């Protein structure tokens, strides 16, 4: 039943048009940058976020618009579908995306370990509060889930169903 619903939503020509592909590239980059800025500032310098005033709304606006564009793009939603409902090109794209996500997670885990060991060795007084940890985890999630989509978006080229 679910499989047949997914089958009825194949990629259309407009999903791989110049507008859609370049839009996905730009929106993914804007999404990552604005989300990272907002979460990092909110975690470590919330007073700075208050001080920049209108700048905060601009960053939030960019985040909102890019997430809408992101959500409306069928390529990104199709990559979240079950493997068996995907075409073989989509399956290869999805496994490539998983590989990038996994590598990113490994690199981030390794970097966290290195930073923790260094802080411990140099006996730097560094503690993270629950709120800061939450925002840091959000950054990790963005890196793991959105970064692979951004990489894929920069790799695929626009295509038409005709010649």
């Amino acid at each position: 039943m679910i499989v047949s619903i997914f089958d009825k939503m194949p990629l259309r020509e407009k999903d791989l048009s110049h507008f859609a592909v370049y839009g996905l590239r730009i929106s993914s980059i804007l999404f990552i940058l604005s989300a990272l800025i907002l979460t990092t500032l909110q975690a470590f310098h919330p007073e700075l976020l208050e001080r920049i005033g209108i700048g905060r709304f601009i960053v939030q606006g960019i985040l909102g618009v890019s997430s809408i564009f992101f959500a409306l793009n069928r390529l990104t939603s199709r990559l979240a579908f079950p493997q068996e409902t995907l075409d073989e090109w989509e399956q290869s794209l999805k496994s490539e995306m998983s590989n990038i996500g996994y590598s990113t997670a490994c690199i981030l885990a390794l970097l966290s370990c290195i930073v923790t060991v260094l802080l411990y060795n140099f006996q730097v007084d560094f503690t993270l509060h629950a709120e800061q940890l939450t925002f840091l985890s959000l950054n990790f999630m963005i890196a793991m889930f959105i970064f692979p989509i951004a990489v894929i978006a920069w790799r695929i080229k626009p295509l038409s169903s005709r010649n």
Partner: protein
Amino acid sequence: MIYNRIKILRTEKGLSRKELADAVGVNFQTIGYLERGDYNASLELAFKLAEYFEVPIDMAFSPRPFKSLAEELTENRRAAE
């Protein structure tokens, strides 16, 4: 990298990417990226395409770049002589 002649074979039959994709059970983008050389077909798809065009699989796919039609015709003529 696997080279293919899908675009020539498709054009000869007067098909669009969508029509060929429907005939072999994939989406149009798979055919498009295959023709451009951005994607290598699975063995299953390669056989399906060769069967659809009624050509031996090594006529449609090759690990080496295909010769141009002019070169092949010249070679065939020389071989016949």
